């Protein structure tokens, strides 16, 4: 019996744990540390139509139980991702979730069409919420109509299921979730980073070259749990939950809030072996609790508070 087996649209996973987009590159570095096939899936680094350098450095700053990042979507562009990164990944069987971003709807469409045609890509993750890109990106994630239109257009061109990654920087995340659900999204990823800032009191200027950055890590976990819980009351779409996960207890909390799988970002920096440790710990916990499958955690789900 595989207590951790998890099947979501496009993603047939041995376990529900994957590294989060942007915190794991395209897997090459971590492949030196462990066998990538141990993972439930991999969310790949955000990819855009053209290559991007991203923001100047400093790109990261530490905050209490969190970090700010403003990488700015640096990536080699969809062509190179396909020719170099995905072909390298062909030697693995772990399901891949390709994270895509863009400045315009056309950007997204082209990148989605190209990536989803690759045989190793099992699903797309639409990053409509990256707060570090000046044009486009952020608007899609905060306006339900734009988000819905983008989802619809990407769904039309995509060969694989589409997960929409929601931004926490909104007044009402449920409205966004419902809008993209209606537009045909196959699942949701949440949450992306919370926009924040740190000022260097030596200089009086923002510490990140970009000014603002995205807050991640345990500091944002209560926000993620709240939003997933809220959205779970409003939709049955599968949810890949993330935001501050660093322990098995956190994974369980995300499931109880309504997540069907989880992604681990920042914790990979503190401990590059964290994903493996969580998989092992979760298996042990599920065995102790005689849980036949981890998805059974949802059976007791409270649908209204």
């Amino acid at each position, binding site marked *: 019996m595989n207590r951790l087996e998890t099947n979501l649209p496009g993603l047939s996973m041995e376990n529900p744990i994957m590294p989060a987009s*942007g*915190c*794991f*590159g395209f897997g*090459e*570095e*971590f492949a*030196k*540390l462990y066998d990538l096939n141990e993972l439930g899936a991999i969310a790949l*680094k955000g990819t855009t139509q053209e*290559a991007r*350098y*991203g923001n100047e*450095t*400093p*790109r*990261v*700053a*530490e905050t*209490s*139980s*969190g*970090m700010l*990042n403003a*990488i700015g979507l*640096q990536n080699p562009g969809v062509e190179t991702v396909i020719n170099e990164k995905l072909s390298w990944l062909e030697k693995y069987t772990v399901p891949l979730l390709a994270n895509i971003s863009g400045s315009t709807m056309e950007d997204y469409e082209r990148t989605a069409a190209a990536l989803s045609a690759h045989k190793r890509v099992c699903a797309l993750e639409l990053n409509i919420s990256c707060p570090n890109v000046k044009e486009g990106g952020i608007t899609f994630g905060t306006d339900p109509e734009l988000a819905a239109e983008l989802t619809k257009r990407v769904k039309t061109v995509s060969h694989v299921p589409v997960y929409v990654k929601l931004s926490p920087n909104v007044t009402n995340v449920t409205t966004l979730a419902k809008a993209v659900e209606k537009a045909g999204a196959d699942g949701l990823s949440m949450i992306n980073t919370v926009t924040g800032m740190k000022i260097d009191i030596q200089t009086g200027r923002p510490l990140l070259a970009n000014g603002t950055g995205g807050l991640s*890590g*345990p500091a944002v976990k209560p926000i993620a749990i709240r939003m997933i819980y809220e959205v779970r009351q409003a939709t049955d779409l599968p949810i890949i939950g993330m935001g501050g996960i660093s322990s098995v207890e956190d994974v369980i909390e995300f499931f109880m809030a309504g997540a069907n799988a989880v992604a681990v970002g*920042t914790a*990979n*920096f*503190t*401990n*590059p*072996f964290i994903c493996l440790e969580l998989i092992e710990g979760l298996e042990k916990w599920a065995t102790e609790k005689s849980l036949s499958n981890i998805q059974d955690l949802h059976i007791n789900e409270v649908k209204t508070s």
Partner: protein
Amino acid sequence: MKKNNMTIYSNKKIANSIFEMVLEGEIVYDIERPGQFVHIKTADESPFLLRRPLSICDADKKAGRMTVIYRAGGAGTRLFAEKKAGLSLDVLGPLGNGFAINGTEVGKRAVLVGGGVGVPPLYGLAKALTTKGINVVTVLGFNDADTIFYEEKFKELGDVYTCTVDGSAGYKGMVTDVMKREHIDCDWLYACGPKPMLRALECQYPEAKGSLSLEERMGCGIGACLACVCHLQEDPSGREYRKVCSDGPVFPWREIAL
């Protein structure tokens, strides 16, 4: 590269805010070159998520020990300073590529220039160079007399020129001033320190062979997160770039846009 609980063999203050820590553990046996670094977790239950990158200053594979020297400046390094011998630290390493010295020829002279906490990796380098039979001259720049460390140690390996910004010890001024004044020219030049220092050196010795070691704020330390990228001089567009953690921290002169 390993993630290891290393035991603190010793941890002592050697100058104002500057500490020398000797660590024991398996990571030592993986060290390939001077100039590599380790990425150290600050504490077990801590609000500080990010590891701290520190250069490997010296390694003794026989004893299974390595030395790091750090400035207890911020919240994380201040926690290091409190740790007593016998405790352990969660260390990731060795990371990065380190100084390549295979090009250097016996009998030639190598000048090593360090600024502040850029000095530590040069000590291992100086030892490697002298072992190979290269003449080593060291130029050390510090803020003031109170923050000088390892001067004597470098003197055992060759000539040392020390300077301080405020003139409270050694020459007054910047390392490049001293080098000009003392007509120090170099076949091979190795440096580690603040970017303005590296920029001034590159400008003053436009033909130098050798390499420099860079600092950048890091996330993962292993090349995955792109926190630590830098531009190439040849490609200001940024299409090509380097990651300080995995492509560096040591780069040839005139490769990186400083």
